[in-house]
């Protein structure tokens, strides 16, 4: 149930493989710390791979928004990859689907960075 993350680098883009739940508490904190750590090390092209994220609550949605804006404010870009149906539906009803750059193909996501 706990959220886990692992990072990979492809052509200068950091893929963050997330799994589990992004909810109030540990899940949100792990995501926040991961993105802040990447940005502090100069990794500003970030893809959050949410293929294995099976649950997200309003706090988790807020954390995704925070990660997006924090990255953007530091001159970077953060994109979402492989949304599950549940996460996709949540981003649709909260109108955030249009805010995030959402990809369903990893290679295309990597190529999409300038």
């Amino acid at each position, binding site marked *: 149930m706990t959220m886990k993350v692992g990072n990979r680098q492809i052509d200068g883009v950091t893929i963050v493989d997330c799994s589990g739940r992004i*909810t109030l508490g540990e899940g949100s904190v792990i995501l926040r710390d991961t993105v802040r750590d990447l940005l502090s090390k100069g990794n500003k092209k970030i893809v959050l791979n949410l293929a294995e994220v099976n649950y997200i609550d309003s706090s988790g949605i807020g954390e995704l928004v925070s990660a997006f804006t924090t990255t953007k404010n530091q001159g970077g870009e953060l994109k979402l990859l492989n949304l599950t149906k549940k996460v996709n539906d949540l981003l649709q009803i909260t109108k955030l689907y249009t805010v995030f750059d959402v990809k369903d193909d990893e290679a295309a996501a990597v190529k999409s960075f300038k």
Partner: protein
Amino acid sequence: MAMTEQRVSYTLDSSLETIDSAEEKATRVATELGFGDDEIMQISMAVREGAVNAVLHGNNYAPDKKITLAFELIGSELTITIRDQGKGMDLSRIPNPLAPENLLKTSGRGIFLMRSFMDVVEIRPSSTGTELKLIKHVHGSAGGGKEASQ
């Protein structure tokens, strides 16, 4: 909750564990009532959001304040009530999270999600706490209505 019972209630601490516990209880009750997978997710998420509001914004994690969570089957309606012992929610301060100026805010979506997922959401603030009532019609998705039949 054995569904031969008509009502069950819990008194819970103002802690993060309560939020997970409330969600788990909601999932169990919704499953026992025969809701479909999507509705079970909706009910459990609505209860989770209600519990978050009660623990964080209502009781502010105060160890001496409790949350009460009740599930009640009345006719063809599952009614879930969550009460906190806070100062009472100010309904005028709830923003519309879909407004363009609020889209990038990192909070303020909990009540919106509850209203999206449940047939009826009633919030009754008072000086001794806030009472949240969530209603879902049993087999609600087949009915398609958004208002509770009284």
